[in-house]
């Protein structure tokens, strides 16, 4: 019944379709002659995202089943999809508020439409259960972000950073796609379902089979290509230049949208192995990349006086912490406890969102401040804020404390649960790997302490130092509301982390249990059966 399946897919995708449609409308509004139409662009973008949230939450009252738990057209609407869609839309509201006044008036339409397309892509990464859909969703996340970096402010700097970002991104996409092609070769189909998991696991177990090398290379290349999205070590070169060249709100967006997309895509690829991250080649790759990302990111960040570059390098370190959680894997403790301790992937999902909010908040404040008319970038620029603008100073300190992982900020809960689940995973790992996982956790904790040094420098500059020429906030309401909302959410998650953690638990539930293979009824199986009868290829 392809028509019924098609109808289900379309209604499930209503939130994404709203974003894409509003994106097209906003794109056309750029061409309007009157300035008042162009000035309405951010408002329309925001209402589109809010409408998508309402449909996602209350759509079932209208008969729109946005969360139909079925596999249709390569999409599965499980807990992970729900987590990604909700967090993408909530962060989307913050991002729109923060970048409300960002690019010049004439380019605002293009800018906000690209933002909407990127968010729609992120929302599609969550439910994708097919190599083709996953790849297209990842590209839908990336390509608009290259354009956003280029458009975000005038001058040659954003162009240079967009070009670096684009070229490395195209290469990383090609590496990912090469890995995907080998995975497709091993599984014999593009679907990421139980049948595909069986084939990959069989191929990895049997070193003599011809599929063994293909599966290993495919997995490693897919994961390595995706490291670009989360800016982990072999593909991290671009990040400081991109953050520095782009306008601050765009840098804030880059800390969340591509990162969540990359993390979720890595989840989906690693689930193909039955989450065999505590042994074999995958373990070593993740271990080495995690250690190098944490250490190199933190050491490079220590040397910076430019806050944008410092936050960029610290983003590499945060990706390292996330990889520790990925290495731990989902629900290692076995028992379904209420907390996310012992559930590495849930902890990572929680951490990505918290990091995204704190990072966005910090960049929002940087974008808001001006020193002699130019944007605020260095430590000297933010010095002495407490005396003149205490609310901004305290928000900045809150963001920095969260990124640092100071208890009781949500950053602390995130780090605690990631490292705790890695320790829990070590208990279940083979003896040789046990010690290496413990070593990884120790390195991660030492790195967190190292990171405190440069975050404290910013906090000290903001709260303690004096400046005879303080930065001034631009008198804009929307970015300030966005920054306040970021701070508010951080406080909420500091004292009520449960709801977000429970969402993360639900999301990681299905990672060990792949969606069942349903192609028995679908057309490709019928084609395959027909070919069995007459022994000729179907084309």
């Amino acid at each position, binding site marked *: 019944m392809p028509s019924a399946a098609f109808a289900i897919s379309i209604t499930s995708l209503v939130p994404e379709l709203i974003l894409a449609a509003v994106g097209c409308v906003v794109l056309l509004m750029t061409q309007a002659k009157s300035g008042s139409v162009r000035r309405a662009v951010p408002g329309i973008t925001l209402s589109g995202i809010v409408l998508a949230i309402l449909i996602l939450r209350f759509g079932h009252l209208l008969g729109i089943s946005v969360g139909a738990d079925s596999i249709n057209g390569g999409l599965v609407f499980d807990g992970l999809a729900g987590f990604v869609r909700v967090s993408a839309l909530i962060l989307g509201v913050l991002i729109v508020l923060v970048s409300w006044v960002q690019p010049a008036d004439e380019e605002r339409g293009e800018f906000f439409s690209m933002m909407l397309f990127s968010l729609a892509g992120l929302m599609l990464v969550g439910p994708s259960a097919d190599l083709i859909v996953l790849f297209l969703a990842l590209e839908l996340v990336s390509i608009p972000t290259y354009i956003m970096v280029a458009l975000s402010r005038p001058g040659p700097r954003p*162009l240079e950073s967009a070009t670096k970002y684009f*070229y490395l991104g195209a290469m990383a996409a*090609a*590496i990912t*796609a090469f890995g995907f092609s080998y995975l497709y070769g091993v599984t014999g189909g593009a679907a990421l379902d139980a049948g595909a998991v069986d084939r990959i696991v069989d191929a990895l177990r049997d070193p003599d089979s011809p*599929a063994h090398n293909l599966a290993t290379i495919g997995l490693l290349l897919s994961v390595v290509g995706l490291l670009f999205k989360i800016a982990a070590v072999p593909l991290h070169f671009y990040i400081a230049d991109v953050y520095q060249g782009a306008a601050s709100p765009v840098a804030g967006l880059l800390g969340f949208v591509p990162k969540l997309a990359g993390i979720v895509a890595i989840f989906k690829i690693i689930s193909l192995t039955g989450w065999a991250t505590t042994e074999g080649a995958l373990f070593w790759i993740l271990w080495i990349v995690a250690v190098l990302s944490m250490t190199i990111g933190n050491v490079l960040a220590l040397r910076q006086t430019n806050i944008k570059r410092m936050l960029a390098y610290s983003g590499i370190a945060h990706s390292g912490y996330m990889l520790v959680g990925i290495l731990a894997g989902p629900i290692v403790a076995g028992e379904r406890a209420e907390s996310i301790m012992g559930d590495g992937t849930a902890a990572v999902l929680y951490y990505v969102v918290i990091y995204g909010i704190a990072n966005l908040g910090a960049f929002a404040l940087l974008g808001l401040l001006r020193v002699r008319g130019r944007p605020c970038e260095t430590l000297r620029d933010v010095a002495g804020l407490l005396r003149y603008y205490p609310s901004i100073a305290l928000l900045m300190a809150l963001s920095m404390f969260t990124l640092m992982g100071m208890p009781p900020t949500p950053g602390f809960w995130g780090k605690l649960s990631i490292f705790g689940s890695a320790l829990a995973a070590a208990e279940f790992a083979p003896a040789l790997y046990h010690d290496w996982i413990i070593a990884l956790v120790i390195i991660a904790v030492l790195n967190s302490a190292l990171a405190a040094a440069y975050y404290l420098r910013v906090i000290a500059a903001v709260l303690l130092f004096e400046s005879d020429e303080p930065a001034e906030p631009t008198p804009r309401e929307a970015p300030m509301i966005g920054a306040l909302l970021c701070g508010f959410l951080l406080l909420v998650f500091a004292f009520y982390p449960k709801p977000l953690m429970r969402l993360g638990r639900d999301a990681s539930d299905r990672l060990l249990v792949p969606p069942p293979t349903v192609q028995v009824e679908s057309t490709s199986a019928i084609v395959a059966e027909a070919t069995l009868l007459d022994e000729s290829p179907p084309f």
Partner: protein
Amino acid sequence: MLVAYLLVGAALFALGLIGFVTRRNLIIMFLCTELMFQGIVVNLVAFGRYPLDGNPTLDGQVFSLFLLAVAAAEAALGLALVVLLYRYKGTLDASVWKLLKDV
């Protein structure tokens, strides 16, 4: 048969990667990423036609069509960026762009 096609695909991909890393001309670097994508397309079509086991599926061919569409979108964006960069400096050499770096 499959092995020969895979070798061609891997060779195209490797040439593209080497070219991307060694060349400094923006257009050539972009063409190298295209070469990498073509290597992937060869892989996908080969796996679709000669699967390791089981019957041929069409997923690989479909994937390669979408991949070409993505490559075309990237070409549109990449060439637009190259034109803008050329207007600033009048050269296609990537190494003249050093506005952003560690101090």
